[in-house]
């Protein structure tokens, strides 16, 4: 784990945000319910005994006349947006983990506003003013008035790192630098955010964060692993996580309406070029690159088609336009395709075209190799494969990956090009006792086809429970071909796999056979049925 000095962080916490988001003041008795359980309750409701995780019926019995609302996560996010915007006036990097919780790195802003105290006071003032404007503020209550950074629907705190700052926000105070550990010590262990670990620690006799922090880090690591160490660091006030910055509001998708709908390749190529330039320009102006691009199309008949294109993050207008043109071409021209059926029906044209960049990352540029050669080769190859994927579908271009197994068919998995391709698959390493020795057959039918193996008297050959064949193979008939004499053979090599699983249990005995025609086969028999697993070609 990367150990960094925790950053001074301001956290704005709205304790009952689902209630506030629904437009209710704290003094109204309101509970928000999801899946028949209370997720949030207003201050008034909590005073009469309503609490989270309670059943709805119990909550209603605690407070007659309780208004029960069902949860609307979308509305919570929308309602929180003005709060985030208000915070953004104080600093650019606002992190939102969930609606009702926002954090801000204070180092720069605090200096500008003349210290953390006055900075927090300014933020508090702005938030309180916003609450009054939105009608969230209730009547001032006695008890909370004395604390400067606590409103009736919000609380503020500043400390080292987001975790300590969240705790500080509960109290509505500012914890000086380096004092987080002392500040956190009296809090109950349940605050740590991992119910399972908290429960275990409680049973071990550790009830506060301070008690947990006193344990030796090495011991914690031995007993609780990496996650334990992370939580231990939290308890010690060493929250090294940097704030995850709030997602951008700007929508990067680009859309165009085609009037009249385009149904020929020439028109679409022209549109593709324009759109591609626009998209790349928009991404570049934000300093971003995207690793995949969704092309979505609505046809004049109302059908919707979509395909995702992946690239290593260096889309240029020419690349985008090329793929767009290929894809549209494939949809327009490929309507006669029989398989899959994902083409356009004949008279339909493209009415709406939408490009959605996905997996957006900061554009860090790309490094070619010293001579540039290999990289450009890979790029050229990737483009060719992408083009074929556009024609036939992404599953049609695959790369073989060796995995563990005994038979030749089980040892290969096909990964569509563009999907992650591990350098080495751990399963493929030995031991696989009973694995077919080298060389493996060069032809492995996807669907094993039947064979017939007879001994000299014309009887079918089987293998008994002890793995002994019932005769010496004399002729082999493969598929629909006529029987051919066996000139050499070996076997049986019995394999009994996954006997612990009744559905996947597979038991077979393998033979290698060379016929007088000059063919060599890998055959397998299971309950008297012979199949061709592979042939040496």
């Amino acid at each position, binding site marked *: 784990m990367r150990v960094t000095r925790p950053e001074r962080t301001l956290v704005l916490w709205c304790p009952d945000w689902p209630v506030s988001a629904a437009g209710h003041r704290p003094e109204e008795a309101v509970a928000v319910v999801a899946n028949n359980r209370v997720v949030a309750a207003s201050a008034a409701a909590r005073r009469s005994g309503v609490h989270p995780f309670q059943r709805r019926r119990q909550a209603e019995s605690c407070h007659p006349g309780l208004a029960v609302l069902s949860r609307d996560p979308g509305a919570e996010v929308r309602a929180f947006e003005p709060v985030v915007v208000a915070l953004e006036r104080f600093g650019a990097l606002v992190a939102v983990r969930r609606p009702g919780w926002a954090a801000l790195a204070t180092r720069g802003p605090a200096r500008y506003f003349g210290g953390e105290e006055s900075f927090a006071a300014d933020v508090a003032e702005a938030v309180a003013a916003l609450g009054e404007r939105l009608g969230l503020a209730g009547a001032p209550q006695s008890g909370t008035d004395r604390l400067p950074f606590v409103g009736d629907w919000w609380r503020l705190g500043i400390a080292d790192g987001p975790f300590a700052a969240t705790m500080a926000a509960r109290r509505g105070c500012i914890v000086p630098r380096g004092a987080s550990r002392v500040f956190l010590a009296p809090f109950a262990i349940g605050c740590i955010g991992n119910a399972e670990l908290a429960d275990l620690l409680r049973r071990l006799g550790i009830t506060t964060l301070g008690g947990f922090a006193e344990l030796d880090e090495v011991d914690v690591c031995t007993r609780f692993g990496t996650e334990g160490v992370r939580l231990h660091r939290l308890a010690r006030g060493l929250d090294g996580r940097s704030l995850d910055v709030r997602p951008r509001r700007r929508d990067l998708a680009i859309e165009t309406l085609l009037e009249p709908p385009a149904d020929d390749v020439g028109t679409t190529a022209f549109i593709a070029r324009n759109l591609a330039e626009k998209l790349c320009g928009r991404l570049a102006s934000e300093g971003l690159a995207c690793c995949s691009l969704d092309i979505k199309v609505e046809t004049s008949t109302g059908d919707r088609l979509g395909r995702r294109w992946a690239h290593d993050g260096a889309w240029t207008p020419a690349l985008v336009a090329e793929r767009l043109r290929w894809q549209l071409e494939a949809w327009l021209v490929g309507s006669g*395709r029989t398989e899959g059926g994902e083409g356009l029906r004949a008279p339909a044209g493209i009415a709406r075209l939408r490009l959605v960049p996905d997996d957006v990352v900061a554009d860090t540029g790309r490094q070619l190799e010293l001579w540039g050669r290999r990289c450009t080769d890979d790029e050229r190859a990737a483009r060719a494969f992408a083009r*074929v994927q556009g024609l036939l579908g992404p599953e049609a271009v695959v790369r073989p990956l060796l995995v563990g197994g005994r038979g*030749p068919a089980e040892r290969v998995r096909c990964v569509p090009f563009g999907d992650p391709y591990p350098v080495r698959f751990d399963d493929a390493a030995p031991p696989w006792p009973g694995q077919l020795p080298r060389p*493996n057959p060069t032809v492995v*039918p996807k669907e094993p086809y039947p064979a017939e193996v007879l001994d000299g008297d014309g009887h079918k050959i089987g293998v008994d429970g002890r793995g002994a064949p019932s005769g010496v193979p004399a002729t082999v008939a493969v598929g629909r071909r006529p029987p051919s004499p066996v000139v*050499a053979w070996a076997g049986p090599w019995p394999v009994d796999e996954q006997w612990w699983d009744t559905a996947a249990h597979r038991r077979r005995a393998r033979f290698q056979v060379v016929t007088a025609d000059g063919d060599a086969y890998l055959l397998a028999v299971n309950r008297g049925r012979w199949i061709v697993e592979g042939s*040496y*070609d």
Partner: protein
Amino acid sequence: MAVALPRPAPSELVPGVPGGDRRLRPGVPRVLAQRVRPLVLARDELLPVAPGFAELLGTLGLRRGSTLAVVADGARGTTSVVLALLAEASSLGAWCAAVGLEDLGSVAAGELGVALDRLVLVPRPGKRFTTVVAALLDGCDVVVAAAPELAPADRRRLSVRARERRSVLVVLTGSQAAAAVVGRPWPDGVDIRLAVTGGVFAGLGAGSGRVCSHRVDVVATRHGAYPREQRASFWLPPPPGNAPPASSVVAKAAVTSAGAR
């Protein structure tokens, strides 16, 4: 642009020897020689192959832009021959694609030396065979295509595409890996035609042993090379120590003769 120079004899094209391919005939002034030096080195135009194949092909590698045909002439072994042909180039980083080989055994490909992370399969090109192969020729160094019956114009177009894109097209017919594709050997327009005429499986006895290696006899018919026909036999995969496997029983399969079938 490079000035065309007389192509050096193959003996002068020794990859790995610095300047081995830049030797010029005596009598060309050095200043002039530097000015007219070809921009594309001849060794860049060759994809390396295993030593046995070099003799068979008459060049030290697969010449970029050429079209090869691998056909079964009464014996099994075309798939192994193609995979062994690709192995050297693929392990040095060349991208290979196999089109229409639905039942190709990838484990065997790896065992014969093909780098699987540089191999891409298009098992079912369907009716768009020509388009797919043409697209792959744009990006891959070698494209192995199990050819369905194609119109002569399409065949020519693919060969021209390979030449233009400096990649190698290997047309495979008679392979069992190409399911349900009735192919016919390309009669014209191929630079080198490799016919597998015979083969023997070694290591398997009457109820004992296992298939250890497969000897394939290959006849190469080369366009514009002397001698026009060249024969060679390979053990695939090569037995350790490059000696034929010392097996008591050798299953003699097909006789080395054309038209046994």
